């Protein structure tokens, strides 16, 4: 087997300083020492965001060894959001309507320098709108979403991870209301793809009481294996899973995500020149303050 580069995993420093660089035609490859690891950190205490932290408030460990890092001005970093929406049959009615409204509101809250793409999935994945800052185009794509067919969550997530050519860290917002029943990729494969990707993943899981279209939907977050899997996938990247208990909660869930993006801290860490191949576990903590830090749990270095 050929050695695998660290494709898609690490961000490129130069593009992070708020610069509007064109997306790289080639994915970042971990050749010698040029790449950096980006960490979106969400810091809370008793559920409330802790503002005003500086680099000195954090300590970062890579496989247990403390590492130097930079704290970037998150508010100046453009967002590259990929909206990945379940449009299976079970989304008919209030859910698809609320999802459309929530997505439109999300797009409206993006800044001019931000971009978004739209992917829908049922038993087929549609790349409806590529990354763009063209708001009317995004709105049109959102309004054209129609429920139909089965659910292929993992394949759609893989598509969202692979397809964008953005050199920036991509924010993937995955919305689904049901168990995966059509994907080719399994849990193990999608987990590996997530670990190797450079994306931050947030999941909105809509709850549904009844059977729809023959499949158990997310009856509650606690008893669904699929919800656990999606929560785990989001956690790897530093993201989270938000439950929308009813269609009316879909909008607030999306608002919560964009609020979090504005409140996050972005750390940039450049690994040593010849990193050990394999999974590198990252541990990010506060040095002297009480609080909970949520960030990506690691990154992957391929054997050369």
């Amino acid at each position, binding site marked *: 087997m050929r050695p695998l580069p660290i494709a898609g995993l690490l961000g490129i420093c130069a593009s992070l300083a708020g610069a509007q660089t064109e997306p790289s035609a080639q994915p970042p490859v971990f050749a010698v020492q040029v790449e950096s690891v980006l960490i979106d950190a969400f810091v809370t205490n008793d559920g409330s965001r802790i503002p005003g932290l500086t680099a000195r408030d954090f300590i970062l460990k890579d496989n247990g060894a403390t590492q130097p890092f930079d704290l970037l001005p998150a508010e100046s970093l453009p967002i590259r959001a990929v909206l990945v929406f379940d449009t299976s049959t079970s989304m008919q009615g209030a859910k698809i309507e609320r999802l459309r409204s929530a997505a439109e509101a999300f797009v409206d809250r993006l800044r001019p320098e931000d971009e978004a793409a739209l992917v829908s999935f049922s038993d087929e994945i549609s790349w409806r709108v590529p990354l763009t800052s063209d708001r009317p185009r995004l709105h049109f794509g959102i309004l054209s979403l129609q429920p139909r067919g089965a659910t292929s969550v993992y394949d759609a997530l893989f598509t969202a991870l*692979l397809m964008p050519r953005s050199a920036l860290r991509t924010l993937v917002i995955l919305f689904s209301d049901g168990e995966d*029943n059509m*994907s080719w990729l399994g849990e193990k494969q999608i987990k590996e793809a997530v670990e190797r990707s450079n994306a931050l993943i947030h999941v909105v899981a809509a709850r549904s009481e009844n059977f729809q279209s023959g499949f158990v939907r997310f009856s509650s977050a606690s008893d669904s294996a699929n919800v656990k899997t999606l929560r785990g996938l989001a956690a790897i990247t530093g993201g989270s899973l938000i439950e929308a208990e009813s269609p009316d909660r879909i909008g607030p869930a999306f608002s919560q995500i964009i609020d979090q993006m504005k409140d996050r801290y972005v750390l940039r860490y450049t690994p040593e020149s010849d990193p050990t191949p394999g999974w590198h576990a990252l541990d990010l903590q506060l040095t002297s303050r009480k609080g909970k830090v949520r960030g990506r749990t690691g990154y992957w270095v391929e054997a050369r």
Partner: protein
Amino acid sequence: MGAGLSFRRGTPALAALFILALANASAAQMVTVKERAYWGVVTLYAKGERGIALANIGAWTESDLGRIQKSVEDLEKVARRCTGCEERRRFDALPLRAAILLHAERDRVDRAVRIQESGAADCAVSAHGRMSGELFGPAALQPGGGEFAKRFAVASSLHLRSVLCFLSGRNWAEAGLKLAPRDAMLHLADGLASESIGVTGFVEPNLRMARDARGRLSNSGYPDVKPRDELKRALGEFEKALASNPRLAEARLRAGRVGWRLGRGLEALESLKRAVSESEGALLYLAHLFLGQCLEDDGDLEGAIEHYAAAVALRPDTQIGAVALAHAHSRRGEPEKGREILGAALARSGTRRTVDPYWSYLMGATSLAETLLEELRVESVK
């Protein structure tokens, strides 16, 4: 005592008998009228007046149908005891196959309406579904009825699986296997339903509606699904199908796929290699996909890519093959290649005219069952 009816000694008993006889005669006459009307509707169906027959049979009550069923069973009991007697001739002349197909079709129509109205899958058996099941046994006794019963059981099993009623589908395959224990298609149908249960983890939507004491969804009236046991059962059925018909390519393909799911790598690899060499069309596409995954799991990424690429070449209109190939390229450190492949497949989204073969493989295709049932209907009209 008044001037009305007066009875001498002993008369009350005679009178009671007379009244009873009258009542019986009346009931018998009514049944005869009803029966005549019923077989008239069935004959209409058999003659091709499908719409009228379907509409008419929908008005029959469950108790009316129960009486018809009883009269058929009574005649069957007598007919079983003699070969050349009048009752046997009458029994053999009953258009039971047309009746079964009529009730089965009405059941499908009713279910489709319920699904349309509720937006949810529905495996509840209607009076017509029950009637087609009740007439199934007697029909097998008629000349040529065994072959009809086998094919009808296969078609019913496939249809029910395609509307996500996996357990009901399996029940039909089992009913057929009681008549024809070595029939390859029935073993295949039984295995298909078991495989779907094993892969999806549920048996039927209606069974999963109930919540247990802790508020969790559970299979009411059916033990919790043990996917591995279901897959083992499926593999056993595919092996029986192959024992009866070694050229049944779908059974070979499925035996390999289920073997892979059960972690029986070497056996799976052999089965899938044979499936690649023996299959064509959608089965060949799937055989390449499944063999590719087996090889990928085995660490042979090059071999996997070769077979995924063959699958994509066969069916460029499907996305599953493209996802598999793009993912493999991505794993090999070629995300740009993966992007190119997946991008091409995404560009075709919305243009596919048929169900993805991978979906049909997992859940079945309504069209196949409809084709089989239509063949039986045309034959019954003849």
